[in-house]
């Protein structure tokens, strides 16, 4: 799934000759794979935190800590943790894969799967099962 960057792997100008005069530099797919997986992971974290806060009181208390007395409740922690996971995962994967090619289809479907699980985790009829 991860290979060295090969600028010749796509024939972009062959598929779309109108691109040729733009003289575009080819770019590795690693950074794109990074954001696909990281965004899926962010949404997954959102759903996981939402559901965990219902299951476990101390997770909820931890998430409420993020509200800094603003009256936001556990949503402060759920959203902050999810956003941090998104950005940190993106940064880490970006740094690792910056100069690599990573198979985009696999990355996208990993991101999509995580995203769908995340949305399920935020869906009240689901997380209320655990109340």
């Amino acid at each position, binding site marked *: 799934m991860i290979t060295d960057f090969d600028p010749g792997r796509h024939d972009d100008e062959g598929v779309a000759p*109108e*691109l040729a005069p733009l003289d575009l530099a*080819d770019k590795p797919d690693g950074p794109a794979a990074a954001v696909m997986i990281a965004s899926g992971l*962010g949404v997954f974290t959102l759903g996981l935190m939402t559901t965990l806060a219902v299951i476990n009181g101390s997770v909820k208390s931890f998430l409420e800590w993020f509200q800094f007395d603003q009256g936001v409740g556990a949503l*402060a922690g759920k*959203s902050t943790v999810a956003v941090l996971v998104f950005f940190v995962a993106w940064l880490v994967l970006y740094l690792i894969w910056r100069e690599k090619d990573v198979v*985009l289809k696999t990355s996208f479907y990993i991101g999509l799967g995580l*995203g769908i699980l995340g949305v399920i985790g935020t869906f009240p009829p689901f997380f209320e099962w655990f109340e």
Partner: protein
Amino acid sequence: MEFSSRETWTVIHGLVLGTLFLLAFAGGLAGLWSMRPGLMTTEGIKERMGRLYIGAWVMAAAAWAAVITGTWIVYPWYRVKLAPVGEDAYAGCVDAILPNAACSPRDFLKSNVSGETEMWHIFGMEWKEHVSWAAPILATAAAFLIAYYGPRLIARPWLRAAVIVMFVAAFAAALVGGAFGAFLNKIAPIV
């Protein structure tokens, strides 16, 4: 003819940022849709990309601004517990027709004083407050992909389709947030 501070923030959160998000989404989607081989000239690609980058980043920025103002400014007014008196959690809501100084929107909905309103909180608000945060994450990821590949998306139909999926998923999450937000604002407005 003026707004209270709370009204101003709900207008910014829902109406101003919501409108901006919708405009940027529709304009961006129209641009993204045409990114297929053979449809644009080289000149046309250059002309298009500038607006597409702006649209995608404006959409992401509007989504971040909407969830941050929503969570940190508007939501605390919604959820504050005003109604409890002693053992009775909803004492402040007795006879209330709408939320008021003794009965927050959350109190009001959960108290069921004006019909079966509890589900608006349990399903509507609980889903909306969480899932809306997917919108800025997905919109940012889509904007990055658009900016990173630029015109090369034209030559890679599968990648373009993947970006459209993320773009539309960001919109769908915002739509759940926006629609329930508007509905809740009807049933139990922030006052």
